[in-house]
C-alpha cells in the first residue's frame, strides 16, 4: 500500500489526520519509504479487517424491531458509515442477518432457509427480547419460538424491546470487533479480564 506524502498546507493536514485514523485500525505496520511504503501484516488479520468493515445485512425484519433497524439504516444513524453499506434483499448477497423481531413456529423454517442460503462467512445478530428469548411472548403462547438461537447460531445479542438505534449500532460494532479479533465472544471476554 503506497502512502503518498502530502505537503503541509491547511487542506492536507486534515487529509493526513483522516488517513492516520484509517491506518490506526489497520492490523499491521506501515513503513514509509521514499517513493512508496511497505506494509507488514498477517494475511488472516487483513482478511478479518476487510470482512469486518464490509458487512452487508439482509433485509429481514419480522416485528417492531424492524422499525429501529430501518432507523439505523436511515440518515440519522446511518450504519453505512461503519461498513454495513446497504441492506441486501437476497441472502446470497448478505453477510449478516439481523433477526429484528419475533420468530414464530411457522417462520422458523424460513429463517433457517435464509441462513442456509447465505454465503460463508455469515454472522447473526439477535435483536431485541423476542429474538433472544421470545420476550413478551415467552409465556402462554402456542406459536412463538423461545429465542431465535433455537433455530440458527447467534453471534451477538442486543437487549431491548425494541432496542434503541444506538444499541443496535453497538451490537454491530461489537460484531466487527469480534470478527477483527478472530475470536469468539467468550474468548474476547476472557482476554479482557
Amino acid at each position: 500500500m503506497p502512502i503518498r506524502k502530502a505537503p503541509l498546507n491547511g487542506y492536507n493536514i486534515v487529509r493526513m489526520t483522516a488517513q492516520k485514523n484509517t491506518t490506526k485500525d489497520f492490523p499491521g505496520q506501515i513503513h514509509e519509504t521514499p517513493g512508496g511504503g511497505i506494509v507488514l501484516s498477517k494475511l488472516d488479520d487483513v482478511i478479518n479487517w476487510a470482512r469486518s468493515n464490509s458487512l452487508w445485512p439482509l433485509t429481514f425484519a419480522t416485528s417492531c424491531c424492524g422499525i429501529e433497524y430501518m432507523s439505523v439504516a436511515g440518515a440519522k444513524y446511518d450504519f453505512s458509515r461503519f461498513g454495513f453499506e446497504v441492506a441486501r434483499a437476497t441472502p446470497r448477497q448478505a453477510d449478516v442477518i439481523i433477526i429484528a423481531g419475533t420468530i414464530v413456529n411457522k417462520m422458523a423454517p424460513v429463517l433457517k432457509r435464509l441462513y442456509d442460503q447465505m454465503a460463508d462467512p455469515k454472522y447473526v445478530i439477535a435483536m431485541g427480547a423476542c429474538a433472544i428469548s421470545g420476550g413478551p411472548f415467552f409465556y402462554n403462547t402456542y406459536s412463538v419460538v423461545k429465542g431465535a438461537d433455537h433455530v440458527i447460531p447467534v453471534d451477538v445479542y442486543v437487549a431491548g424491546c425494541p432496542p434503541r438505534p444506538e444499541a443496535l449500532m453497538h451490537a454491530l460494532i461489537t460484531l466487527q470487533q469480534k470478527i477483527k479479533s478472530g475470536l469468539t465472544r467468550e474468548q474476547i471476554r476472557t482476554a479482557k479480564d
Partner: protein
Amino acid sequence: MQNEELKAKITELLSAATFEEGGEWLNINVEPADWLPLAQQLRNDASLYFDYLFCLTCIDWKTHLTMVYHLSSTKHRHNIVIKSKLDRNKPEIQTVSQVWKTAEFHEREVYEMFGVNFLNHPDLRLLILPDGWEGKNPLRKDFEDPINMIKL
C-alpha cells in the same frame, strides 16, 4: 343515521334484539338463529346499507363464546356492532359469507382459533395454522400445549 335512529330501525327489523349503549357504537345482541336473516336485512335495507364488514371475531368468556361483527356503511357512514352468544360446547352459527364476501376467510380464522362451526360455509378449513391443528383451537382459554407453552 345516529345511534338512536339505528336502534329504532333495528328494533323494527328484529324485536328480540337487545341493545348496549354508552360506547361510540351501538351494540346489538342477537340470538344465533336470528343472525343470518338480520344480516341480509342490514346489508340490503336502503336506509341502513351496511355494505362493509370490517371486523369479525370471537371472544372466549370461559362460560360461553361471543361472536362479534363490526359493520359499517360506506354510503351512510354509520357503524354498529353485532354480538351473538354461542354455546361453548357446541358453538354453531350461520355463515354470512354470502352476505359479505370477506367473512369467508374471517370465519375460517375463527373456526381454527375458537372452533366455531359456521353452518353452510363454502370452504370451512384451517386458514393460517398448519396441518395437524384441526380441532385444537389455540385461542380458547383452556387450550394447553405441553410442548410449546410455558405456564406463568
